């Protein structure tokens, strides 16, 4: 008689990345946000193919036409198709979201890593500079920078990126200080690794999760800021479409053509909401303690 010993099934060991992905996918709202962003990116990328009309082509026979089958979102004061302008406008909003965040992260993350890792005098100096920048409300600093640099989408993105870098620096600095208390950093030092290698090879990869969350939430802020700057005439310049500048123009025709104000606003709202939902989902997935 032979006895068989039933062993418990070995539990599948999952990588932290896979666990985070599973947690993220479990959050319906975050997945909805991601889906909307993917949709907007695809539409913006394929704008010349999907837009029904040329976004800057004027038509004197179609001035301020209400939404219809020919023009789903109506036409503006120059007879331009609003849907086509909203579709092409997504390009400047997304571009501003990505480029501004890259600028802010490009300055803020290395500065935060340096401040946290070096500590002492370097940390004190960098932290005071950041304190001073944070003392100026973000949008006012961005408006002032854009005003001095001159009105254009490029300068608006620089202004937003520079104004927002302190937030990235703070997050990166805090994450660096947190990571430095781990044993693997101590071990890396004990093995004789030079400081720069410990910072770049051992700490930098470990501060990525909070930076990624910050980047996603910052994209929402950057899109709102670009819309605000364009609304104030400091961003994308006409006739090129941008959601903010469309709202600026729409203000003059509120009573005659309310649709001019409705659709670009919905586009901004949906885009920003999606980035916020995705950012919240990413935060919960990457740092379940914060829930």
């Amino acid at each position, binding site marked *: 008689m032979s006895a068989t010993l039933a062993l418990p099934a070995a539990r599948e060991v999952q990588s932290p990345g896979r666990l985070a992905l599973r947690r993220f996918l479990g959050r319906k709202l975050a997945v909805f946000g991601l889906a909307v962003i993917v949709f907007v990116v695809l539409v913006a990328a394929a704008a010349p193919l999907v837009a029904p009309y040329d976004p800057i082509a004027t038509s004197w026979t179609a001035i301020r036409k209400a939404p219809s089958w020919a023009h789903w979102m109506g036409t503006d004061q120059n007879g331009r198709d609003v849907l086509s302008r909203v579709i092409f406008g997504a390009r400047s909003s997304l571009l501003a979201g990505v480029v501004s965040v890259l600028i802010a992260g490009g300055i803020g993350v290395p500065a935060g890593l340096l401040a946290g890792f070096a500590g002492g005098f370097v940390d004190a100096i960098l932290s*005071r*500079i950041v*304190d*001073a*920048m944070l*003392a*100026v*409300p*973000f*949008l*006012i*600093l961005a*408006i*002032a*920078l*854009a*005003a*001095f*640099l*001159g009105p254009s989408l490029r300068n608006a993105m620089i202004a937003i990126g520079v104004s927002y870098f302190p937030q990235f620096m703070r997050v990166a600095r805090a994450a660096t200080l947190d990571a430095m208390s781990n044993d693997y950093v101590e071990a890396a030092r004990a093995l004789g690794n030079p400081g720069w290698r410990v910072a770049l090879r051992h700490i930098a990869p470990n501060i990525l999760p909070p930076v990624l969350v910050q980047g996603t939430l910052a994209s*929402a802020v950057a899109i*709102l800021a670009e*819309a*605000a700057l364009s*609304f*104030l*005439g*400091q961003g994308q310049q006409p006739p090129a479409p941008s959601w903010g500048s469309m*709202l600026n123009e*729409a*203000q003059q025709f*509120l*009573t005659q053509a*309310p649709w001019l*104000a*409705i659709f*670009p*606003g919905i586009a*901004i*709202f949906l885009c*920003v*909401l999606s980035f*916020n*939902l995705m950012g*919240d989902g990413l935060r919960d997935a990457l740092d379940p303690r914060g829930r």
Partner: protein
Amino acid sequence: MSGHLGARLAQVIPTLLLVSVLVFGLQQLMPGDPALVLAGDSADAQTVAQIRNELWLDRSLPAQYAHWLGNVLHGNLGYSWRNREEVTTLIAQKLPVTMQLGVMAFTLAVVIGVPAGVIAAVKRNTIWDTLANAIGLAGLSTPTFWLGIMMILLISVDLGWLPPSGYVPLTEDWVRSLATTIMPAIVLGSGIAAVLMRHTRSAMLGALGQDFVRTARAKGLRERVVVVRHALRNALIPVVTLGALELGTLLSGAVLTEQVFSIPGFGKMIVDAVFNRDYPVVQGVVLVTATLFVLLNLLADILYVYINPRLRAA
């Protein structure tokens, strides 16, 4: 307590000094020579040189900064390039308008945001919680200027209840003043209400799980007393600090709100200055805004110490 406040005060001075460097540095980003811009296209070299001398542009950067800072400390923020009026006078005229709007917006935000956060936390995982969270997230994602335009469309254009733009000072006619500022205040306060709601909900959830709340319930106190007297009082402590940070949002939001509703305040002044390339006004507004923000945060810190018994005792 005095040590904590002393340390905070000591932090404020270098921060403001660095802010002044930042604001002065803005001028260096300006394309071209300010003297040429001021003198105009037809000016001769002598006039340009004279302007350069008057503005200290012919000195070194540190000398220019020291001169500028000296003037600022004496309350002289320079002159508007557009109408030659003192920037300080212009700011003093516009600031009360924005302050009225700001106070109204912040009051509305607190009145809506804090109770909504409490309800969301007390009724966690119910339809009320979901609803409060959804409205909060929507508030954070809605562009202020678009909300303003939509409210003008609905309330002023369609219903005709309130004027779509303009401003009447409180001292002139308080009823009309409220009628012209209530809609902008709602617009400006909505985003802050959303943030306050999220902070309050999170702080209340933390407080409701604490031992002292369990003890209060065990004593047989009514739920309303437990929530308001015990949990909320403790939850509000971090909300005060986080709420103070929203004052920056308030000042930023005022720029857009005043533009949409044509309110002649501080925010509209910076926009007009940007349009007119009136750089001394832009610099002045940024400097005053930053100083206000730093001082209001200091005030919040003092309040924080005052309402937190542990810090007060220390």
